[in-house]
């Protein structure tokens, strides 16, 4: 992992609506955004960021790139990510919502073969408060500190970052692995990264219904994580079998009519409790649990 402040960053889809909004915000926050790519827009610039038609042209012109943040339309995400991998980029953040899951399967096979870290899709990306923004986190909610915040959500992550900031608890990183059913980086991967990260003292894990990432995380924490972890699960009252807006946030049976329900909030909360990980009842309870874990005074 190389998400240091001098990481050289590319933005693919810089001429798309969302990319065009966030490119200057990322740069203004201090991200070393060295180039943008948007096919058909080569030769243009946006806020003095040079735009190229191809990733390989960008690399040839501005030099090697550590991370690409991808904002292209859903059906173009696979191609953009494969193009980045072919150009030698080993860290990719997928912001876009709506990427077909089988495209993601194809991408993950390639990413595994090339040892590429994929974050997302359907993720606001990564923020290292005070240093860099690789995505669309609202920077005003974050402040530098020692809480590592990992989640599957977008706006809920911002909400919790704000709660932490208002409680005087800064963050070492804010990252969402993405709201889709099939995502690249996993909770255990990020738990390991943050466990080894000197700037992180406590980890807040924000889960939601659907899938078994939280159960896997709970298991991994019990086995391998030394730092304290606080968990929160959204969706305890969500109706079954209904899409909540995240393709991944759904309680269903893996096979129609066969097998037991997968992905309920109860299953996740139980897994954390079995692993002796404190579970917040509501977002506003998270700062207190963090302080308790850090043995800080509990006044807000």
């Amino acid at each position: 992992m190389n998400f240091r402040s001098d990481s050289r960053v590319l933005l693919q889809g810089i001429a798309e609506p969302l990319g065009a909004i966030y490119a200057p915000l990322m740069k203004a926050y201090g991200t070393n955004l060295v180039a943008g790519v948007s096919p058909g827009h080569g030769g243009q610039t946006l806020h003095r960021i040079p735009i190229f038609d191809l990733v390989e042209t960008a690399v040839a012109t501005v030099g090697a790139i550590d991370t690409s943040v991808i904002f292209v339309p859903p059906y173009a995400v696979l191609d953009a990510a494969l193009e980045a991998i072919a150009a030698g980029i080993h860290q990719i953040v997928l912001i876009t919502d709506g990427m077909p899951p089988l495209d993601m399967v194809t991408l993950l096979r390639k990413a595994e073969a090339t040892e590429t870290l994929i974050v997302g899709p359907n993720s606001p990306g990564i923020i290292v408060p005070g240093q860099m923004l690789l995505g669309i986190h609202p920077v005003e909610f974050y402040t530098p500190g020692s809480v590592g915040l990992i989640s599957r959500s977008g706006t809920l992550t911002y909400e919790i970052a704000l709660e932490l900031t208002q409680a005087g608890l800064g963050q070492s990183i804010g990252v969402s692995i993405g709201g889709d059913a099939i995502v690249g980086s996993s909770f255990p991967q990020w738990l390991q990264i943050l466990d080894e990260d000197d700037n992180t003292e406590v980890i807040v894990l924000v889960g939601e219904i659907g899938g078994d990432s939280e159960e896997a995380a709970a298991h991994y924490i019990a086995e391998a994580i030394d730092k304290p972890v606080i968990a929160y699960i959204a969706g305890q009252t969500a109706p079954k079998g209904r899409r909540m807006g995240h393709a991944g946030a759904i309680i269903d049976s893996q096979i129609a009519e066969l097998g037991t329900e997968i992905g309920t909030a109860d299953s996740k909360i139980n897994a954390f409790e079995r692993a002796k990980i404190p579970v917040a009842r509501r977002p506003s309870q998270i700062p207190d649990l963090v302080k308790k874990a850090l043995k800080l005074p509990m006044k807000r």
Partner: protein
Amino acid sequence: MDLLEYQAKELFRGIGIPVLPSQRIDRPKDLKGLTIPYPVVLKSQVYIGGRGRVGGVRFVENTIDAVAAAQTIFNLPIMGEYPKALLAEAKYDADQEFYLAVVLNRSIRRPVLLGSQQGGIDVQAAMDQMQHVVVEQEFSPYYARRLALKMGLQGDLMISVAGILEKMYQLFIQKDLDLVEINPLGVSPSGTVMALDGKVTVNDDALARHPDLAAILETQDKTAFEPLTELPVAMEADGQIGILCNGAGLTMATMDLICQAGGKPASFLNIGGETQWNSSSNILRQRLERGLELMTQTKQVRVLLVNLVSSLIPCDEIAGVITAFLKRRIREPRGVSEIRPDTLIIHTLRIPQLVVRLVGSECDRAKARLADAQVTIADTLDDAVAQTIVLAKSVTRDS
């Protein structure tokens, strides 16, 4: 989104999976034009499983019986769902019934082939013998043979079942599906195989690149559709609280808090997070307008909690959308000339109490803009929830 059996079988036929001769029956009299020789099986075309156990599948020997049976099935709701069509299909004498499926497994992040020698309606038996093969790398037919062998098959039957699995996988990939299931795959005494029932779940996100699937789904009964994220999802029949948020996680967390605090949600609406590639403040503004429209149209919603955490659009702009919406709804319900005094009153009454909680840039300006509007402003999520509960209680008391 699921396909009905007859639609799934059309796809099977197209890719070369053997299916029986069949005809769709839209009304009982269609059976007079049946070209399949009797005996025939009539099957209720519903999205719910287990129709066989409740009388949704009937064998008939002649036209008179068939018309009568069709009338019965058309009038038989299955878990509340009435069929819009039946499938009339040739009868097949299966010696054995297998279960086969291709499904995308989200934990393994790969397609998985599933198979059991115990298919049919006894779900538990199928599960007990279920075998699986993960399609780790690019698919090649040996994955299908691996599953057929794990299922305990051999010789020609192993080859036939592997051939069916291969075609199921092709269909799965070609059409971007979440699930292809054959249950049962009938095996005749001579060892030929036949897909006797099938289920196909298409992936909503991939639908736009498969116009053929989109066309099939458009002809379907719209009410059977899984609600789109753009439509409110109904919750409790006696709930009074509406929840409007941006983002799935935030929507769920807000609803959880409402329930924890003893509130009863009537419906909720997620107007979408901020990871759409084409998002802009304009688009979010439109979604919010439409969301307010939808959530206030439901008479049941007496208190609407609007909880928005936005990075894309400043809070004062959101506040502007809300105040403009309130003005429009109260002052200009349609064209004023069309409105009779009584509807005007009902209409005004219909607008729920709003609790608005906004987080993002320009929050203070937002509060100033909302100061004159008839809304309750909250700073924190907990506060917003508490205010909502108080209002809901007072509304319930009043009514």
